[in-house]
């Protein structure tokens, strides 16, 4: 059985005075996922529609968008579940990122923060795109730090649960107010890197990296990052654990 779904998609191209929305009526199988519907909109209605997609199974994180105001991975969102059966389905890019084109956002600043943890990231090409990453995101370019683990397999160490989708960044109210905040994903990666690291000095350096007004102390405990995460990263838990570690570290420094 097929469904005819009206997709209302955010549109913006460089040079436009302002963004607008286009509605496409797409026909997809009842069992299709939302990404399939977006692809039909591109294939059959407007080939200028830009959006990211790769693995189609929630492994790469590249397709993340907002669906009716809620952050989701459209590759694993069945249309039958996300569309209530009537009315338009609103598709918008992630919040708190500069928008390059339509549903594609500038993730360079986000990936630069992830690199700072020293863990391997998969989308290395997107850390250095020739975009206004630094100006738009306000992020300082952080130097990647090598994480040495006991068995010497540092170059294979990836933050397994995190798929670098950016959904937590979009959901975070603090990221909305400031670009300088390290962000839930970056802080969770730092926490994981500290757990993996066999080098105590490295673990301390990572802790000091997030001790500041734009690090763990900027979080306002909305917990929306953990609630929105499509994997089991629990960035809010990681941030609070880092705070606890920081307090213990400062206490030790003060009283020896």
């Amino acid at each position, binding site marked *: 059985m097929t469904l005819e779904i009206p997709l209302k998609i955010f549109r913006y191209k460089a040079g436009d005075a302002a963004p607008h929305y286009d509605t496409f009526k797409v026909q997809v199988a009842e069992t299709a996922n939302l990404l399939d519907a977006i692809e039909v909109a591109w294939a059959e209605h407007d080939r200028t529609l830009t959006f990211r997609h790769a693995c189609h199974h929630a492994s790469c994180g590249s397709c993340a968008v907002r669906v009716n105001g809620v952050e989701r991975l459209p590759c694993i969102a069945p249309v039958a579940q996300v569309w209530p059966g009537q009315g338009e389905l609103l598709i918008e890019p992630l919040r708190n990122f500069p*928008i390059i084109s339509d549903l594609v956002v500038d993730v360079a600043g986000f990936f630069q923060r992830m690199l700072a943890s020293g863990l391997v990231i998969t989308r290395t090409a997107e850390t250095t795109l020739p975009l*206004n990453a630094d100006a738009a995101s306000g992020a300082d370019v952080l130097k990647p730090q090598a994480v040495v683990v006991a068995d010497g397999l540092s170059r294979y160490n990836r933050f397994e649960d995190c798929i670098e989708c950016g959904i937590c960044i979009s*959901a975070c*109210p603090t990221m909305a107010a400031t670009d300088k905040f390290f962000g839930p994903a970056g802080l969770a990666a730092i926490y994981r890197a500290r757990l993996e690291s066999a080098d105590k000095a490295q673990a301390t350096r990572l802790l000091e990296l997030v001790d500041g007004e734009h690090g763990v102390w900027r979080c306002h405990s909305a*917990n*929306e990052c953990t609630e929105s995460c499509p994997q089991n990263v629990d960035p809010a838990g990681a941030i609070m654990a880092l*705070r606890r570690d920081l307090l213990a570290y400062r206490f030790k420094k003060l009283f020896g």
Partner: protein
Amino acid sequence: MATQVYRKSKLRRALIWGDVRKRRLGMLAYVLNRITGHGLVLYLYLHLVILSMLAGGPSSWDPFIALAKSPAFLVLDVILIAGWLIHGLNGLRVTLTGLGIGVRSQKAMFVGLMTIAVIGIAAMALAVFSKG
């Protein structure tokens, strides 16, 4: 050459904090804390202004006391008490989770503490209106 990107204005982005549509309990708690916090700061300044009336002697202070006993003002008192209780009890939750304690049960903590707040507000409202 840098690519042109689109961003909403800083003001519009900053106002996103108040958008609780389709957000969960933690976000609601955050917004509630922010609103009550702003309200309590405003109250603090108002309180100082009102106390400055004392410098004007009985002719300045007594009319205010008469106003303070009016039903409309008593409602404001109850709203103030609500702000204290909500902000204070939620603040307890934020303090504990900020120290890494009870992070996974932050939702249950919020529900429990706000239940206490509601009971407290009801009890205080009763006390305020029965004496007033």
